[in-house]
């Protein structure tokens, strides 16, 4: 319900201005979203992280189209060559161009990171809020499942199942997502327990709004900052888990590559052929650094009082 501004006698609104003059733009209050964006961009490290991430994404997705050698066309005339103008990152023992291989792995890591983060954060939000809002047996059942998934070693389950995927990315994303949402779900549940007693939630409830609608319209939007930050953390968790699993041969299977398999393959020759290790590892570290810096910047932008300002 909105009240027409003319009826508010004696109130100075942005529209009427003082003495009915032209609207005063200066009095307009910037929206919360805008304040957060401004605070985020004001931090050098967060801005650096954002630019770095964009550069890395650009490299991973545009780079292969610019480069001379594709991943599936090994150069049989140059084995283990150091980086040069033709092979930007050098080649490995089979003549595969390392730039092409690294970018292929990077594409996978970026995609998996983003998808898993979205999946895991959504699950955490829905399950946590549902358990917290409805309480009683729904809460009991959902939290019991959360606790069970926390006890099951996720690494083990994914490792056992991965040889069956045959590099099916969707299955991999779902499995990774399945195992990283539980702790956030607990936090969301705790927050929901206090939010559901607030006046606006109670008002909506007594107006007859359904529970599901209250969760999506009133509770989750109020947890937006928590969820956005959590999603950023989940991106780096997902990338770390994917590369870690692939490092042991449990994730991405040959003939496909991941940053993890590239690093594993370079492990023994890291001293003698350092480029084989440094490029994939460097890309991975920069990617994680960019995501972490963005996450930290978001945290400070949402809550400038408590953040760990870098």
């Amino acid at each position, binding site marked *: 319900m909105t009240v027409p501004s003319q009826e508010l006698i004696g109130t100075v609104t942005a529209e009427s201005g003082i003495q009915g003059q032209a609207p005063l733009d200066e009095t307009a209050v910037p929206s919360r979203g805008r304040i957060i964006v401004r605070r985020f961009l004001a931090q050098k490290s967060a801005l650096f992280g954002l630019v770095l991430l964009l550069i890395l994404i650009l490299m991973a997705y545009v780079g292969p189209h610019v480069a001379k050698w594709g991943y599936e066309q090994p150069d049989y005339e140059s084995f283990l060559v150091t980086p040069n103008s033709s092979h930007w990152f050098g080649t490995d023992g089979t003549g595969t161009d390392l730039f092409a291989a690294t970018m292929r792995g990077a594409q996978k890591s970026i995609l998996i990171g983003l998808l898993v983060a979205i999946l895991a954060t959504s699950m955490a939000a829905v399950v946590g809020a549902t358990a917290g809002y409805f309480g009683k047996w729904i809460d009991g059942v959902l939290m019991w499942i959360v606790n069970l998934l926390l006890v099951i070693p996720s690494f083990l389950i994914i490792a056992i199942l991965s040889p069956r995927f045959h590099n099916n990315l969707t299955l991999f994303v779902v499995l990774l997502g399945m195992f990283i949402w539980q702790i956030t779900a607990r936090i969301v549940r705790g927050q929901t327990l206090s939010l559901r007693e607030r006046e606006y939630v109670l008002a909506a409830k007594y107006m007859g709004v359904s529970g599901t609608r209250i969760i999506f319209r009133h509770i989750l939007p109020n947890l937006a900052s928590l969820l956005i930050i959590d999603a950023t953390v989940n991106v780096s968790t997902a990338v770390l888990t994917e590369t870690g699993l692939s490092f042991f041969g449990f994730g991405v299977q040959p003939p496909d590559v991941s940053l993890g398999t590239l690093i594993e393959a370079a492990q023994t020759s890291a001293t003698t052929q350092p480029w084989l290790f440094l490029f994939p590892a460097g890309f991975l570290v920069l990617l994680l650094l960019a995501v972490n*810096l963005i996450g930290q910047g978001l945290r400070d932008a949402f809550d400038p009082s408590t953040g760990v*300002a870098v």
Partner: protein
Amino acid sequence: MGKYLIRRLVNYVVLVFIATSMAYLLAATSLNPRSHFLGRNPPVPISTQDDILDRYNLNDKTPVLERYGTWLDNVVHGNLGRDYDGGSVGANLSRRMWVSGQLLLIGTILGGLLGVAAGAIAAVRHKRASDIALTQGAFFVLSCPVFVIAILLQVGATRLNNAVGHRLISFSGQFDPAKPGGFFSHIGDRLDHLILPTITLMLAGASYLMLYQRAAMLDVLGSDYVRTARAKGLRRRTALIKHALRTALIPSMTLFTYSFALIFVGATFTETIFGWHGMGEWFVQTIQGSDTNAVAAITAVVGVLILLASFLQDVVVALLDPRVRV
């Protein structure tokens, strides 16, 4: 209170039981212990294969539920089963837990001390050069996966050894069995092998804890009781250590206790890369080697250790935080 604790304990035991059973069933249906006979020359007759697999309760021709029943019966009687070449899973388990404990004990403690100290110093020197350097350093280390740190350290050590001309730092295995000398030279050799894995574990643990400790300390530094402590005439140092740090230690101590209680679980990447035959390495090997019984045993042990860790955590919080004591 006692009733609540017992209910929690029972609930947790049920959870561990279900998790272990799920791990067993998943491993029993997905892993293929018969693959060990593949490519043997001369080929092992099928009947012999069945015989051996039956002896270890690993035969995929026996229905899964029957194998599960046998396994469960054994476990209840304190027998964790055999691995694919007949070794006792229980004996392997205790040996490897001990190896992991040895490896992680020093690294975890040093990482904890370093993290807490660096975090507290950074908070006290908020927004000055040392704070920024420490925080950004921690952030960078946090962005380096453990396997990248470990391999980088190996490369560095190899360079150092080459520069010096002899092997100054060893980074493969727990000790050098061929090394001559008595007891003290053996201890020195062991310590030498501990250097790189310990640094790896320390860096990873410390960077995480440092950011935590710094945030907690910053919260506390602005509080009234620290100001009161200063106002009543305490020196800055005393006020900071006795009043601020003690309170700010609670969240990091809970984190630290948790990771400390899990030292017997092992460190998968560190152990594999540095050739320590502990739990973490075993975990990877059992899956690669299709060792169903060992996989289930590891799941159970890790579950129980997590249970103990969270109990220990509660105790430590109660000791540090008088508000929690009832």
